[in-house]
Each structure stands twice: as C-alpha cells, then as structure tokens.
C-alpha cells in the first residue's frame, strides 16, 4: 500500500552537486552556487516528515528526484525547517546541524558505524565527526511503523550525540530492521529519513550499520562498511569468524577483537582524511625512475621461502612491491596493511611478527607479516605463508636494506619523502590549486603536497568530500558522467577521465569551465609525461628466475 509522502513539507533539498552531476547541465549554466555571495546564511537542513500510518512496516517509499532549487531552501525559515516529525516524536534537528560551521554553509556532522553479531551482540560502535555541506542529501524516504521509527530515531540520536547508552537495547531492533529487508540483496538495505542515511549490511554472521547525516551516498557508506568488515576479517579470517558463530551464536566477539579497536578507529577516520579508500587505489610515492628501479632491484634480491608479498611503505605511501606471479595485491589489502602499521607505534620497537589475513588475497587463511622499520618513516613488510619463517624474513629484510644502501636508494627515498616537496608548481598550470591523478590500470594515485588553503584540516576534508562526490559521479552505476564540474563558495572542482587516467582538480571558485578543462588537459599531459615518476609501473614478480622487471600491474589479472 504505497502512499505518497504528500505531507513531506518541502521537496528535499536539491543539491547543486546533483544538478552539476550531468555534464551537460553543468556545462551550460553556471551552478547556482557560483553566483551566491559566500556569506549567505547557512541553509536549513533537508527535511523529511515521516509519516507513520498503517500497520505495515513500510508505508511509502519515494525516491524524490533532486528538483528543488537553492532559492527555495534559503527562503525556508529555520523554524519551519528545524522541526521534523519522526514517528510520533517531535524532534528538533536544527541544533547540531547549524552550529560549528567552518565555512559558509558547512556544518560539522557525525557519522556512526555499528557492528553487531547476527545474534544482536554489539561488536563495535564508533562515531566520527564529519564536515558536510547540508544541501547534499539523499531523497529516498521510508515511513515506518512506530517501533522501527523509534529505533531509527535512537540511532540518529546516537549518531548525533555519540550517546551510546541506548545502544544495547537497540541491537534487537537493528536485527529486526535488517531481517525486514527480506531480500538477500544488500543493495536494498538502506533508507534515508530525517536527513540521515541508514545503511545496513549483512556479511556472514555480522551485521554492519552506518548512520550518517554527512551526505555521503549509500554506495559510499556501503563501501566503508565493506572496508570495516574486511578489517575484521584481517584480524580473524572468515573461517574463524564463521566457526565461532557456528559453535556459539551468542559469542561476544569483543573478547577476540579487544585491542583491535584502534584498527577500526583508524580506518573510520581515514575514510575522510585520505582519498585512497573512495578511489580504491594506493598512493604511490613520487620518485625518480632511477631510484624506483634500484628499489625494485633491492626488493627482489632473493626468493626467501614462504614470501608471498613484500612491500616498502612510507606511512600510507607505497614505495616498492614484490608479489608472486599468480597473485596480485589488491589495493584494499594494502590499505589494511598500511592501516595496521599506522594504528600502532609499537611496530617501531624491534621487529614484529603477526598473523594477518588479506581478505582479497585469501579471506580464509592467515599470512604472517614481518614488519620492521628500517628508517624513521620507512617500513618493510614481508608477508609469508609460513608461520615459522620469521628469521628467514628478518634475513631477507637485512638483504633488502643492504641493497637499498648499495643502490644509493636511501637518500633518494628520503629526498622523495622529505627533501623535495612535490609541489603543485611543477605542473606549470597556475590556476590549479590541488589535484589527484589516478591511474586506473595501476590502481595508484598521486597528489601534490597540499598547499594553502588545503593545509587546514577542515578545508582539506571539504575538498576530499567534493572529490568523493566527483568520483561517485564518474563511477555511478546509473548514468555515470564523463565530466563532473562543481562550483561552490570556496572552490571549483573538475573531474574527468582521460584515457586510463582519472583526474580531479581544484580551482578557485570563479574559474570558468573552459579554463578548468584546459587546465585538466594540461594536467593529463603532464601526468603522462611523468608517469614513471608518479607511479609504480612495474612490479617485480617473485619466483621468476630472471629478476627482470616486468611491466605488470599492481593488481588485476596477470597478463598471460
């Protein structure tokens, strides 16, 4: 008995982002934002009045097209907008949305992740502050019966205030909501209500939930939940996870995960501080090709027994990699390894040896990771299939270090890391403020050191979020665009695909699309010219007799 949401007070806010989504419309008329004075009052949050009528759990599902224009939003008074009805509960949403602004129209919001077992036992819950432009919203609306509406309301309160007192009583309701989405298809397990997006995901014995008012799309939140799930597999393997819940449905997984919260926390924070997650690719340290080649040689000095993957990392940047012939290292796995190392300073004392599961490589078994810092920021990670191969790996590390020293790479790497900052100036396109270039086949990306204003955390996060939007538009399952142009009060962003490169570029807010297009083409030419410098183009393969450097990919199927 679908019932249209006639009393929804306003059509949910249009987003200038969505109007800019299609390249045509964006190309013809400047987005409304560009003409707005930057000190205009913050817009009220998108409002949705939920209707709780019939007995049915869901009484209406309306996908509202992004139609309303910005002026509407501005005219709508805050008092009118601030009160929404959620179930029979009146709640004031204005607080928390309009405070703590860090730029015109930008507000701090929160996003909350929950993980629980299928038996309803809480496993993980974390709230993350998030900077968001309120006009970005999603417009699928559900009306639920009282019980479920209350559950969602509570989830939102937790999401907003980080108050977890109600959490355990909610677990049962989350279970019920998830099971209501009868389909096994995760893609329908989401809804947006009252300015919050709820994404539910079922992964084996685990339920994962994201509640967010950040304007990130369902697909993005789902991808983040998937990363969090991979993080749990990284710690336990799917085999162990399944076995635990097969034998004891009520097992409290927090026993086994205790002490790993820092991994999940670090990951939840990284989603909005580094673009690697939404780009699905790895940041590569820019180095002269000569040094890169030397590093590759040093990494492949031998073939120690059991070695599956070897990598040289500087923070979350990849410097060198070796991999087996038949396997490739998926960026998601590499993110998890880098995330582990970033999570604990403990790795800095001594040599570490720990089981890890790389879910994309094999989610059923552990590899054993040898981790050792060989410089202040330089870390060798060797993943072995043999749990007793610590000393073999330790020796191999010593050889790598010797090779790096003999090849004179240490200074080269150091310089690439610290000495010569990779500046936007090199590209020679003055209008550029910042950019990301991703090589699609290599699943790697590069970006210059952020220059002002992006050295400020909030500005940086805002830019990342625009990039994230752009990335989503380029890869949308339905109607992907080939060019994405956004203009806002603080900057304009142009994103497009040129051949195998994906480019994201930030400009001043008043740039014209033509100028931006010219700039991005120049950027693409520069990136192609400097490809050897920017990306790790060839990855030495383990076990091949001749340690020649083959032009194979970091990931993806190995070419025959």
């Amino acid at each position, binding site marked *: 008995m679908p019932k249209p949401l006639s009393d929804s007070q306003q059509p949910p806010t249009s987003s200038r982002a969505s109007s800019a989504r299609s390249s045509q419309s964006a190309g013809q008329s400047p987005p409304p934002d560009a003409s707005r004075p930057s000190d205009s009052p913050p817009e009220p949050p998108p409002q949705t009045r939920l209707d709780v009528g019939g007995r049915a759990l869901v009484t209406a599902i309306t996908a509202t097209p992004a139609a309303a224009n910005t002026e509407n939003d501005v005219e709508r008074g805050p008092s009118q907008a601030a009160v929404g009805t959620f179930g029979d509960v009146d709640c004031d949403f204005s607080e928390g949305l309009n405070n703590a602004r860090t730029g015109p129209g930008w507000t701090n919001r929160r996003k909350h992740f929950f993980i629980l077992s299928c038996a309803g036992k809480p496993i993980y819950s974390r709230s993350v502050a998030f900077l968001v432009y309120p006009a970005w919203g999603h417009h699928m609306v559900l009306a639920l019966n009282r019980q479920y509406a209350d559950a969602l309301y509570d989830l939102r309160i937790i999401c907003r205030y980080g108050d977890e007192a109600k959490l355990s009583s909610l677990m049962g309701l989350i279970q019920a909501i998830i099971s209501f989405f009868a389909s096994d298809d995760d893609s329908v397990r989401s809804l947006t209500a009252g300015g919050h997006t709820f994404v539910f995901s079922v992964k084996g014995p685990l339920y994962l939930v994201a509640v967010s008012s950040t304007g990130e799309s369902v697909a993005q939140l789902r991808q983040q939940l998937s990363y969090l799930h991979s993080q749990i597999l990284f710690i336990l393997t799917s085999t162990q996870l399944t076995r635990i819940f097969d034998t004891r449905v009520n097992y409290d997984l927090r026993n086994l995960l205790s002490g790993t919260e820092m991994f999940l926390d670090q990951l939840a924070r990284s989603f909005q501080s580094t673009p690697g997650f939404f780009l699905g690719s790895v940041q590569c340290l820019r180095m002269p090709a000569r040094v890169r080649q030397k590093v590759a040689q040093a990494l492949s000095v031998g073939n120690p027994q059991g070695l599956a993957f070897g990598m040289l990392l500087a923070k979350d940047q990849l410097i060198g990699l070796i991999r087996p012939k038949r396997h490739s290292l998926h960026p998601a796995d590499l993110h998890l390894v880098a995330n582990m190392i970033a999570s604990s300073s403990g790795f800095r004392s001594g040599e570490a040896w720990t089981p890890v599961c790389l879910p994309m490589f094999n989610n059923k078994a552990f590899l054993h*990771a040898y981790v050792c810092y060989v410089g202040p920021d330089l870390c060798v990670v060797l993943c072995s299939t043999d749990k*007793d191969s610590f000393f073999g790996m330790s020796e191999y590390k010593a050889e790598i*270090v010797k090779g790096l020293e003999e090849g004179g790479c240490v200074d080269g790497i150091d310089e690439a890391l610290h000495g010569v900052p990779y500046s936007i100036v090199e590209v020679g396109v003055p209008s550029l403020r910042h950019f990301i270039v991703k090589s699609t086949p290599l699943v790697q990306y590069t970006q210059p050191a952020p220059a002002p204003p992006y050295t400020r955390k909030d500005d940086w996060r805002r830019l990342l979020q625009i990039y994230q939007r752009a990335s989503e538009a380029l890869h949308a399952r339905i109607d992907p665009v080939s060019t994405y142009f956004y203009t806002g009060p603080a900057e304009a962003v142009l994103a497009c695909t040129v051949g195998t490169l994906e480019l994201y570029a930030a400009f001043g807010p008043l740039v014209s699309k033509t100028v931006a297009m010219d700039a991005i083409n120049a950027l693409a030419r520069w990136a192609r010219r400097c490809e050897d410098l920017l990306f790790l183009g060839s990855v030495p393969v383990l076990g091949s007799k001749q340690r020649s450097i083959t032009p194979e990919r970091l990931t993806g199927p190995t070419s025959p």
Partner: protein
Amino acid sequence: MSAPSQTPAAAGAASNTPSSTAPSASTTNADASSAAAALKPIQVKLVLLGEAAVGKSSLVLRFVNNEFQENKEPTIGAAFLTQKCKLDDKIIKFEIWDTAGQERFHSLAPMYYRNAQAAVVVYDITKAASLDKAKSWVKELQRQANPNIVIALVGNKLDLAATSRAVPAEEASAYATEAGLLFAEASAKTGDNVMDVFTEIAKKIPLEQLLASRGRAGASGASGAGAAGRVDLNAGPGGRNAPQGQCGC
C-alpha cells in the same frame, strides 16, 4: 659478579627497597671494546607472557633501551628484540620475544615459548585478575615448554604500589616459591628492579651447559625441543646478520 651495578637484589623476595632508580642499560651492556667482547656471546632465548597491558613491552623497552613510554600501544603479534649483557666473564645475548597479551594471540604463544630457555611472566600489581592470568601462563609453560625453562614471575607497576596496589607482594611471592619461580616486583616506569630480573634469570640459566650443547648440536638449543613447526631461533648457521631493531648492541 663483576658488572658494577648488578647488586643482585634478592630476587626471591619482593624488594621494596628502592634500588638504583634508573639502572642504566649501559652498565650491564657488553662493552664492545672490552676484552670480553672477543668472547662469543651465549644466546639466551627469552619470552615474555602475560595479560594485555600489564607492561611486558615496557619492561623490555626499559631493559633494552632504558626508556619508558607513558602510553605504550598494544603489541601486535609479537616483537623480537635483542640485548647483550655481561655477566661475570660471559657475554649473554638475550633474544627476546615480547608477545601480545590480547586474547586472540593466545594460540600463537607456543611458537615463542617452545624452545625458550627463560620466560618472564608478568602481571600488574594493581590488577588482581592479571595474577590469575599469570598463573595460567605458568601452568601452560610447566606443561608444554622446555622442562628446564627458567621462569620469573614479575609484578609490574611497582611505582603504583602506594596508591593502587591490588595484589599483596606476599601472596604472589608465596605462589612463586611454591611453583618454583623467580619472583620480583618491578617498575618499567621508574626502572626499579628491571635489570635485576634479567640478571637473576641469567644467573639461573645453566650457561655452561648451554654453551657446551651449542658447540655440539649447533642448530638445536639446549632445550632439545625439536617439535616441528617451532620457531627455529637458530636458523641460519651462526651468521645471522640481521640488524636487530633497536637493540643497541
């Protein structure tokens, strides 16, 4: 006893007498220039076990680098460190496995203690439950480790004794005597008693025997535990040239 600051505090009893507040590691470190350095160091494999956050890594860091970090992050898996010390006319090279206390790593422990000559089982004197965990580690070691293993029970965080002690020294000490363990209370934070623990262990290990059996068997430790799948600490004939992390020796 020739090493200067190694006044062996009676390790069999809880010594609350403040010993040297921060024993400098260098006092016991083998001096490279000394004649003794010409001697081949005797390798002693030592494993640290105990509940999470009792201060295992902090004790090791105090012993190896003579430093302390206020908010040390949990160990992931296990960390390997080495430290050379001089005891009388011998040089001992401790090869230390600092294991993670988190429950999920429990099943890995045998890999590290299986052919160790010494174990330091740590509890936190401000947390009663951590002594129970320590006792269960001792039991496991006595059942499954090398039968000659030297076990020291260490109550860490002695600096908090005045404010929040939860385990009386007598209780732990009595248990240690009964179970045949070395015992000491120590503080990784102040350095109290830390050196002494390792010194007492070194004194109790049959070094001569170790040396002799090494000479003969080469690859197999004195333990003789040759179970497949163990961490072969002797892998690589003699010349393991891996730079050992931060061991400073």
